[in-house]
């Protein structure tokens, strides 16, 4: 196995603007938690937070960036930390550098300020497009000149631990040599009010693992780690902070927000992380616990610690009483603290602790404990949707470094599509038909044909679920039933905008009710991993569960993860899907910046329409991918590729050529191209150039007149491609006049979003 090490660290939080300041605060037991001074909120005097005492303007200076761009506080914090990490690791060649970031609420800090103005005030329009969770990632990539894989993970409070895991896996599978991984989240009214509805905010300083604890303090911050393949890091003579030796994600599958009584998810995450590192519990020298200070977390995490370590729980502490709970950044901030512990041979004390929780009686360490010969530290992050992760960092043992050999990657092991389910604006739930008839609706955007939800979901659960959760669950169930798989080894989801209905609902009531009388349901369900978590909950599935939230890379990132798992990690069956929902409000807001068409349109007129923008749509498509061919196999998923802001059409051409070559093909082998024209003439020109260039003489069809434009529409295209290959026919409703087809063996899906995010998916015949 390729070994992965940390060679650069960047961090900014309420306890310091860089690594040294962070360490100084820790050794001086200095908390960053205090009053709310920067964030404008009605709750200024109600709660304590870990706030970075710099205004956005001051952060811009610190970040040394072009202040005229649409900066959210989340992006600013991210850029500051990422720049530090890159310079710490002296990464100069960034063309192939991957960036895996994480965030929970993305650009919410600006959206919540200007939300009502979006429809009326043109001057705030620049913040419409900085809202999505992948925005900070793209700002970092542009400011730092990062040219490799780019994606964003959002699994609530475990987000950035999962980005470390994904980055390490990219390196292990040979997809990249170097990755910068981490996450960023700024304080926002949205999260303060959201956690307040759950009644888990402490009005005093939080007291993790203490009997008197009554909740958490929120915080803000960002941190990034540079991860490298160990041999090249050693060869370059860089400082190596630690090796990433183990990691795991498990799902508690118990409740949307609370942990199970016995801490099943936390226990499994830690246990599997140990297994992946080939370590036993007694090898761990220090644990940086999730330890939020809530009644439920600390009790159940404590129980999980007892289950795994029994009487020999190593020195452990929560450092949330220093930084506050920084949500999407918590995992990586606490990884940095864990690495500091490892690097300095100490365990970091848990402040504000006096008396243990009666039910479990375990005591975190409260003083600096010198740990001679410290070798392995473990850190936990747990999030809504039962999303639980653990990562182990270890000192690099010099003696065996020379023995490490890079694996010969065998990425050609085929991955089969063995089940599919699709909810879309067309009749796609019924698998006995295949787009033989399509709906000809004239509307401002395309909405899904609602399935009979009750056939799939218990009415008791249904009452709370918004559209995206319903269509996600239905399409997932159809795919699983189609494949005859009950218990996939992983559930991987992609969504560009996540649960928009719930997000809008909470944001609107926050603004209209002036931060009073808010209810929790829409806040809880606004998290991006709600669908993935709900599927796990409904199927009692405790396995790996991740959600990618990077615009039109979201579904593709989930596919990439899937390919890595099935090719390298010994997984058998994986459920993977992409979904987005459209709302009147989000449609209207995006017409203001020309993303969507303002006037009603019939799908069949889409490609000749001259209005600015795309025809918006929505849908959810799920697949079961398997390492084995079954009787129900649709096609082979050969590969996926993503690239960000190509300089010109030649670069797009080259990317496509290289992608096909990697899979032993040329354009001549492609029997059908499915491309993502969306009726926005400005950007459809790019497809046109391809059609006159690299795709010349190939059969090319469109699909967005059927499903509309949305971030994960490529999942709909993949559903179409799977059916086309399986049935060896292109329905008349989608084949263009004059297209005739022989045996369709290879289909290339090419999609791009406003010439920013380009993606390729290649499917082939399994026979």
């Amino acid at each position, binding site marked *: 196995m390729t070994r992965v090490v940390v060679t650069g660290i960047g961090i900014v939080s309420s306890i310091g603007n860089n690594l040294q300041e962070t360490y100084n605060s820790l050794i001086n037991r200095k908390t960053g938690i205090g009053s709310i001074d920067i964030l404008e909120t009605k709750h200024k005097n109600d709660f304590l937070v870990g706030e970075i005492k710099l205004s956005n303007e001051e952060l811009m200076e610190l970040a040394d960036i072009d202040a005229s761009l649409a900066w959210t506080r989340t992006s600013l914090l991210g850029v500051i930390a990422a720049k530090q990490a890159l310079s710490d690791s002296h990464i100069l060649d960034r063309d192939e550098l991957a960036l895996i970031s994480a965030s929970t609420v993305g650009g919410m800090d600006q959206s919540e300020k200007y939300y009502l103005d979006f429809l009326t005030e043109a001057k705030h329009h620049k913040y419409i497009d900085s809202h999505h969770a992948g925005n900070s990632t793209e700002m970092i990539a542009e400011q730092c000149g990062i040219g490799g894989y780019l994606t964003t993970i959002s699994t609530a409070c475990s987000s950035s631990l999962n980005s470390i895991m994904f980055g390490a896996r990219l390196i292990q599978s040979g997809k990249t040599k170097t990755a910068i991984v981490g996450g960023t989240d700024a304080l926002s009214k949205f999260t303060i009010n959201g956690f307040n*509805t*759950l*009644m888990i905010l402490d009005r005093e300083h939080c007291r993790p693992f203490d009997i008197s604890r009554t909740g958490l303090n929120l915080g803000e911050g960002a941190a990034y780690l540079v991860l490298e393949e160990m041999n090249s890091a050693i060869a370059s003579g860089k400082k190596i902070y630690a090796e990433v030796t183990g990691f795991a994600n498990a799902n508690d599958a118990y*409740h*949307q*927000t*609370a942990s199970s009584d016995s801490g099943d998810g936390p226990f499994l995450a830690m246990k599997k992380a140990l297994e992946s590192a080939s370590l036993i519990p007694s090898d761990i020298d220090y644990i940086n616990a999730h330890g939020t200070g809530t009644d439920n977390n600390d009790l159940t995490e404590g129980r999980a610690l007892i289950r795994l370590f029994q009487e020999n729980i190593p020195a452990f502490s929560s450092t949330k009483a220093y930084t506050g709970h920084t949500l999407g950044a918590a995992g990586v901030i606490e990884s940095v603290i864990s690495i500091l512990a490892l690097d300095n041979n100490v365990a970091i004390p848990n402040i504000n602790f006096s008396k243990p929780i009666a039910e479990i009686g375990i005591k975190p360490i409260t003083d600096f404990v010198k740990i001679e010969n410290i070798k392995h530290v473990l850190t936990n992050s747990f999030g809504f949707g039962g999303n639980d992760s653990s990562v182990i960092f270890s000192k690099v043992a010099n003696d065996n470094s020379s023995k490490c050999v890079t694996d010969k990657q065998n990425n050609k092991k085929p991955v089969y599509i063995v089940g599919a389910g699709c909810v879309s604006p067309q009749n796609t739930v019924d698998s006995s038909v295949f787009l033989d008839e399509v709906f000809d609706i004239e509307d401002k955007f395309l909405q899904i044909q609602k399935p009979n939800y009750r056939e799939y979901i218990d*009415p*008791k659960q*249904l*009452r*709370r679920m918004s559209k995206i959760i319903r269509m996600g669950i239905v399409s997932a169930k159809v795919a699983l039933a189609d494949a005859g798989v009950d218990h996939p080894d992983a559930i991987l989801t992609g969504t560009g905008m996540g649960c928009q209905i719930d997000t809008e609902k909470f944001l609107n009531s926050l603004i209209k009710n002036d931060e009073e*009388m*808010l*209810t*929790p*349901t829409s806040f*809880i369900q606004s998290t991006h991993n709600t669908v993935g978590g709900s599927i796990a909950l409904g199927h009692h599935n405790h396995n790996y569960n991740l959600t990618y939230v990077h615009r039109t890379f979201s579904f593709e990132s989930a596919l990439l993860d899937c390919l890595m798992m099935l090719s390298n990690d010994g997984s058998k069956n994986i459920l993977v899907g992409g979904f987005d929902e459209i709302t009147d409000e989000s449609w209207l807001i995006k017409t203001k910046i020309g993303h969507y068409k303002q006037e009603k349109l019939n799908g069949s007129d889409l490609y000749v329409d001259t209005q600015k923008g795309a025809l918006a749509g929505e849908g959810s498509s799920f697949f079961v991918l398997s390492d084995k061919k079954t009787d129900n196999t649709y096609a082979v998923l050969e590969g996926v590729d993503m690239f960000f802001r190509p300089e010109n059409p030649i670069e797009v051409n080259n990317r496509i050529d290289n992608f096909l070559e990697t899979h032993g093909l040329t354009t001549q082998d492609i029997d059908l191209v499915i491309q993502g024209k969306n009726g926005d003439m400005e950007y459809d020109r790019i497809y046109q150039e391809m059609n006159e260039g690299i795709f010349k003489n190939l059969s090319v069809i469109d699909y967005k007149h059927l499903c509309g434009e949305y971030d994960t529409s490529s999942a709909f295209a993949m559903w179409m491609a799977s059916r086309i290959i399986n049935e060896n026919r292109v329905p008349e409703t989608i084949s263009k006049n004059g297209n005739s087809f022989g045996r369709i063996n290879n289909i290339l899906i090419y999609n791009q979003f406003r010439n920013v995010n380009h993606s390729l998916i290649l499917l082939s015949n399994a026979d």
Partner: protein
Amino acid sequence: MEELIEKLKVQLIEQLNLEDMEPEDIDADEPLFGTGLGLDSIDALELIVLLEKEYGIKIQNPKDGQKIFFSLKTMAEFILANQKK
């Protein structure tokens, strides 16, 4: 009391989005959580807001909800004993 219980039934259905339920489907003595109506801890938080919004009663500790929201009857009794509006 009876009148308040009837009102609470309607408010409960609305606040918790109990789509298929009619007020007459809910028994005033039936447990709201677990076995009865099958509500959960998120619903309890919703009901805390309902009490504050509609009856001006603030509950600080969510654990108090377990007793108060045992049934519609206990909820009505609590409201009558604590209502300020």
